């Protein structure tokens, strides 16, 4: 089973852009079938606080589908990579939440809320 993930990487801002794309493709190669990884490069920006000796970082956001079994290997590679200051992998499935309420449910809800208001007074 594959799940949808979102990863944020903070690279050493001293790295060349080519080196960063190279590292990205190498790490993403560990995820098995690398079908359409959506990349969003934020580029270099100031960190809100110093991390070690770093004051700036190169931010990249990736969204991908991967089998959870491939993740430990992938994380290990990121952890060992000196060029990655920090990374965060999180599930990107918040669209799977409850369905939006229908109009009738909303109306019922509103009627109930108004009742509650009267009780408060």
């Amino acid at each position, binding site marked *: 089973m594959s799940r949808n993930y979102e990863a*944020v990487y*903070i690279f050493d801002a001293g790295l060349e852009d080519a080196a960063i794309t190279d590292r990205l493709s190498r790490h993403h190669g560990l995820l098995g079938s690398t079908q359409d990884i959506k990349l969003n490069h934020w580029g270099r920006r100031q*960190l*809100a*606080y110093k*991390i070690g000796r770093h004051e700036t*970082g190169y*931010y990249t*956001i990736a969204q991908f589908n991967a089998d959870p079994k491939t993740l430990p290997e992938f994380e290990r590679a990121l952890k060992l990579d000196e060029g990655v200051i*920090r990374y*965060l992998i*999180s599930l990107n499935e*918040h669209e799977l*939440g409850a369905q939006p309420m229908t109009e009738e449910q909303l109306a019922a809800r509103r009627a109930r809320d108004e009742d509650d208001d009267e009780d408060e*007074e």
Partner: protein
Amino acid sequence: MRRQKKVCPITEAGIRYVDYKDERFLARFITDNGKILPSRLSGVDARHQRQLASAIKKARYLALLPYDRGHQPQ
């Protein structure tokens, strides 16, 4: 005297999911020192406050927001 009911600013903005990458938005819900603003001051409803808290904590880890702005190094 009756207090006016606050409207949740996040619901009002039509936001369903609070994104940890949007640090401009999250910055509205932290104090000058970098603490998470209590919902009793911001009026955020409970569901969004929970989302907000974890979003702010993720943003802090990613150095998008400060953990503490209390004592700036000179």
